[in-house]
């Protein structure tokens, strides 16, 4: 844990060395998703509702998923760019050190420019929390907080899984974007608007529904979703990290070095 902080501090310092570039990247990270949000606003302006969902409800989902994604991308970036370590043969060096491989890969990169996206997520989230038509209770806040935590773990799990694939493929998989970026774009909206197969996939295979439709229905007190256990359902998303880590250690065992 202490080691992780040291890694993080080191990366923060090194990224701040290129100050202008850092600030510009942060601004970019802020505006890329923000323009998507403007698009969303204009759509609601035009159509008034999305299959019965209101703007503030969708904005709430949007805020949570973007906060979760940016935190996860900042922290687990090392896995996202992991194929580079494999290609250069630098993973061998990690293997000989007396610390767990997952921790070291985690520390191999932190991406602090994601704070731009985080800020826009937080802004939209706080706006939505005030404007959504909900009587906030402690339980509901726990649930909303869980949507972020669960989301962070699901995204991190995905990053780790796709990093593991590069043990075999050497190169990174572009397909991974479908699940990470695609998952983020998709879960900005309530999953119920999609076709059935898509819904099923993102409920049972990649469990975005846990941090999307179920907690949202609970917070809105929709009939059938009022049971107290629904407040904790987003926390189940944390479990997604375990099969990911298991797959990772399986991959490490199978690792064959590329270089000399």
């Amino acid at each position, binding site marked *: 844990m202490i080691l992780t902080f040291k890694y993080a501090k080191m990366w923060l310092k090194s990224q701040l060395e290129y100050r202008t570039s850092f600030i*510009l990247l942060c601004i*970019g990270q802020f505006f890329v998703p923000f323009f*998507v949000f403007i*698009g969303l606003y*204009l759509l609601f302006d035009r159509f008034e509702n999305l*299959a019965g969902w209101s703007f503030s409800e969708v904005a709430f989902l949007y805020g949570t998923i973007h906060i979760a994604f940016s935190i996860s991308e900042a922290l687990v970036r090392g896995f996202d760019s992991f194929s580079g370590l494999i290609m250069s043969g630098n993973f061998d060096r990690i293997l000989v050190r007396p610390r767990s491989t997952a921790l070291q890969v985690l520390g191999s990169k932190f991406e602090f420019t994601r704070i731009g996206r985080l800020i826009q997520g937080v802004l939209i989230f706080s706006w939505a929390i005030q404007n959504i038509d909900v009587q906030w209770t402690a339980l509901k806040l726990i649930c909303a907080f869980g949507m972020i935590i669960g989301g962070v773990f699901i995204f991190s799990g995905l990053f780790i899984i796709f990093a593991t694939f590069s043990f075999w493929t050497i190169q990174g998989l*572009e*397909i991974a974007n479908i699940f990470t970026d*695609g998952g983020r*774009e998709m879960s900005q909206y309530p999953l119920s608007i999609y076709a059935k197969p898509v819904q099923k996939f993102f409920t049972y295979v990649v469990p975005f529904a846990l941090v999307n439709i179920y907690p949202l229905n609970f917070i809105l007190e929709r009939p059938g979703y009022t049971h107290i256990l629904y407040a904790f359902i987003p926390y189940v998303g944390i479990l997604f990290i375990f099969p990911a880590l298991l797959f990772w250690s399986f991959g490490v065992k199978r690792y064959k070095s590329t270089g000399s």
Partner: protein
Amino acid sequence: MKWYVSLLKLRVFQGLQYRTAALAGVATQFFWGAISIMVFLAFYGDTPQINGFTKEHLITYIWLQQSFLVFIVLWLRDSELFELIRTGNIAYELCRPLNIYGYWYTKLLSTRLSGALLRCIPLLLVAFIMPGPYGLNLPASPKLAILFIITLLFGVLINVALSMFIYISVFVTLSPMGSLLIFSVIGEFFSGLILPIPLMPEPLRNVVLLLPFRYTGDLPFRIYSGNLTEVEMLWGICIQLFWLLALPLLGNHLMNKALKRLVVQGG
């Protein structure tokens, strides 16, 4: 001119080698297209049309956007060129007996052409056979199909001219990331990639018509689906021709200015 044509050919063939990467791109774009269509259809609900833009127009619009994505996005970058500027190897480029603007323009154009050639065929095929409401229709008439192809090609020429400004800005900033991000975000929004232009509110649409971004994708896609009147189409093509002349002229001028101030260090 002959030089540029053979350079273009060479580069296009080179680009066509990256088939696996393109296949991954196809899968991603297909997913993206399908998701966007579902979202927009959910927004439409029972509304038959907005500003004369029907659900069928919308589906065509999205599939064409995804199929020809490399023609419209600005974030597609050639890191080789950035490296040239950053490392100072641009000195070699300046020794070539070619106009450097024309040379880079050709290089960027060829990347986009080969990228689109590889991606559009599988994507269009899948889009045509998609079931029921998600499927892509054929062009409204043969005349429109021809106009679509012409405007699409004009569009990519405009887009490359636009993206040249990113490279020119790197002469000043030395780091491509900032201008790349800001440029591409604005371009993406105003070319209708985030929100199709017919769905934008009136004042915003008037702004969009004045900017060059819309003429890369929005115009050809709406010609394809027969969403535009004759007058609108003719006007659109005239404005395309205007940008097609103005942007490279301006770009070339700015580039020469930047090159004059350029100091290459090192031996």
